[in-house]
C-alpha cells in the first residue's frame, strides 16, 4: 500500500528532472523574488536601530529568507495540473486504476516539494553568503517544534485548497487556469508571501486570522521568529488543524459529487 505511493513519488521525481529547463526557470523566478523583497526591506531598515511593525533588521531579513524556504515547502505544487486533467478528460486514465486520485496527487506534490526545497536550501545558503544578512536563529524548542508542525499542516492546507479549486472543471469544463491563477494570486498576498501580514490594520488582521491563508506562510514564520508563543501558538495550531480537517471533508465531498458529474469528454 505504502509502496504504491512511494512509486508515485519516484516517477514524479524522475519526470520533474526530465523538464530541467522549466525547473531552472521556476527556481530563478523564486530567487529573483526574494532578491527584490530583500533589497526593498534592506533599504527600509538601512538604519540598524529602526524598528517597524515590531520588526528590526535581523527579523525582517530572516523573514525574507524564511520565505524562500517556507514557500518552496508549502507552495511548490503539481496539483495545479489537476484542473487540466479533469477538463481534458485525462482523468479517465486515473479513474481506471486502483489508486486514490487525491492521494496520488498529494504524493506527486511531496516529490515536487522535496526537489524545490532541496534547491531552495542551497539557494538560500548561496544568497546568505552573498548578501550577508543578519540571521535570527531560534533556540526555543517549543517554537521550533511549533514551526515544524505548522509547516506540515500548511503544506496539507495549501494542497487541499488548490485541489478544491481544481475541481471546478467538473462543472465548468473551460474553467481551468483562471480560477487557479486567481487563487494563487490571492493566497500569495493573504499568506504573507509578499509582506508580513502585521502591516495590515488590526481589524483586517483579525478577520484574516480566521481564514486559512495566514497559516500557509506568515504564521509558521512568526512562530519561528518567536512572535507567536504560548496560548497564541496553541490557538494557531488549533485553527490550522480545524482548516485542515474541514478542507479534507470538503475535498472528499466535492470529489464524490464531481465524479457523478464527470463526462470523460474527449477521451
Amino acid at each position, binding site marked *: 500500500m505504502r509502496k504504491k505511493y512511494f512509486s508515485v513519488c519516484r516517477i514524479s521525481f524522475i519526470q520533474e528532472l*526530465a523538464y530541467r529547463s522549466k525547473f531552472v526557470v521556476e527556481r530563478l523566478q523564486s530567487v529573483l523574488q526574494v532578491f527584490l523583497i530583500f533589497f526593498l526591506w534592506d533599504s527600509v531598515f538601512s538604519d540598524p536601530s529602526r524598528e517597524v511593525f515590531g520588526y528590526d533588521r535581523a527579523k525582517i531579513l530572516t523573514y525574507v529568507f524564511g520565505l524562500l524556504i517556507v514557500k518552496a515547502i508549502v507552495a511548490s505544487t503539481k496539483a495545479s495540473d489537476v484542473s487540466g486533467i479533469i477538463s481534458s478528460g485525462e482523468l479517465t486514465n486515473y479513474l481506471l486504476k486502483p489508486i486514490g486520485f487525491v492521494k496520488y496527487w498529494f504524493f506527486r506534490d511531496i516529490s515536487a516539494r522535496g526537489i524545490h526545497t532541496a534547491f531552495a536550501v542551497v539557494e538560500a545558503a548561496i544568497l546568505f553568503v552573498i548578501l550577508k544578512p543578519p540571521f535570527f536563529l531560534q533556540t526555543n524548542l517549543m517554537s521550533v517544534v511549533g514551526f515544524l508542525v505548522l509547516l506540515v499542516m500548511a503544506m496539507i492546507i495549501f494542497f487541499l485548497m488548490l485541489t478544491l479549486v481544481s475541481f471546478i472543471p467538473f462543472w465548468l469544463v473551460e474553467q481551468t487556469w483562471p480560477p487557479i491563477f486567481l487563487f494563487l494570486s490571492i493566497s500569495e498576498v493573504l499568506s504573507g508571501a509578499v509582506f508580513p501580514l502585521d502591516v495590515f490594520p488590526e481589524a483586517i488582521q483579525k478577520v484574516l486570522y480566521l481564514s486559512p491563508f495566514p497559516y500557509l506562510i506568515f504564521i509558521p514564520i512568526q512562530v519561528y521568529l518567536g512572535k507567536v508563543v504560548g496560548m497564541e501558538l496553541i490557538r494557531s495550531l488549533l485553527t490550522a488543524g480545524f482548516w485542515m480537517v474541514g478542507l479534507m471533508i470538503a475535498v472528499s465531498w466535492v470529489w464524490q459529487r464531481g465524479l457523478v458529474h464527470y463526462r470523460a469528454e474527449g477521451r
Partner: protein
Amino acid sequence: MERAVIVERLTKEFEVRERRPGLSGALTSIFSSKTKMVKALKGVSFSLDEGEMIGFIGPNGAGKTTTLKILSGVLHPTQGFVQVAGYTPWERRHDYLRQISLVMGQKNQLWWDLPASETFELNRAIYEIPEKVYKRSLDELIEVLKVEKYLNTPVRRLSLGQRMRLELIAALLHKPKVIFLDEPTIGLDVVAQQKVRDFIRQYNKKNKATVILTSHNMDDVADLAKRVVVIDKGGIVFDGALSDLVGRFAKKKIIKICVEGSVDYKKLERIGTIEEAKMPLVTLSVPRGAAKMAAAELLQSFPIEDLTIEEEPLESVIRQVFGGKG
C-alpha cells in the same frame, strides 16, 4: 457458468449546453445558456459469459464508448443495472479495478517524457503485482508484442504503432479478467493491426479473459468476434452470431471471376452489377438468392478461368444495418 458482464436497461443522459453559432451567439451564451438533455443510451441490455469475446459495433455517436466507460467505472449511469465480475463498476472498488482494463486507441497512459519501462514499473506498484508475477507477465508481453527495443526510449520518440503495443502492455500487465477495447487498432498500419489482433486473440484464449471490442475496422471484428452486439442511437439493434448478422442484412453476394481474353461488359451487366474490373479480374455483385444461378450462367456463357462466390464485406453489411450510415 458465471456471467462476467450483465447490463440491464442501461440509460445515460448528458446535459448539453446549446450555443448559437457566431460571435453574437457566443456573446449571448455568456448571459443565458439553454441546456437540453441528450440521451446517449436508451435502455441497453446485453450480457457476456466468462471468457467470451464480442464485437460491439455501431456508427459514431451510437453510444459504444459511453457504454464502455460505464462498464469500466469511469461514468455513472443515469439508470439501469450493471454488474461486471460481480461488482458495480462505478463504485470503483480497488478489487474491481485490479480485474479490468480499458484500452482506448486514442488515449495514452504512458508517461510521455519517460521510457515506457517507467510506466510499467509504476503500474506494477499501483496494481500491487508481486515481483515474480510482474517479471513473468512483462517478459511474456514483450516477447509476444516484440517491443524489446523500445522499452528504454522516451515514449514521445516512438511511432504510433510502437507506442500502441507498449500501451497494450501497460494495460494488461495486471492480467485483467475483463478487457474493454475501444478502437485498439486505430491509426495502425496493416501489419501492426494484425499483430495487435493476434495478440488479443491469444490473450483471450490463454487467460480466459472476457473481451468487449469496439472497432470501426471490420477486419478486427471479423477476425476476433464470433458474436456481435450492434448499437445505434443509444439502443441495441442486433445481438447474435456474426454469421447471422451477415445472413440477415447482407442482400448481395460477391462473385469474382478471372476471364480469358476479353468480355462484353454489357452482357456481364445483365447478370450482376460490376463492382470492379481490372482485367482479367472482374468483381460482380448479385442478389443473394440468385448467386448460384448467376455463377452457372457466367460459367456457361463467358470464357472463365476461375470463379469464386464470397460474402459481402462486413463494412457494407454494417452500412445496410444502419441504413446507409456507417
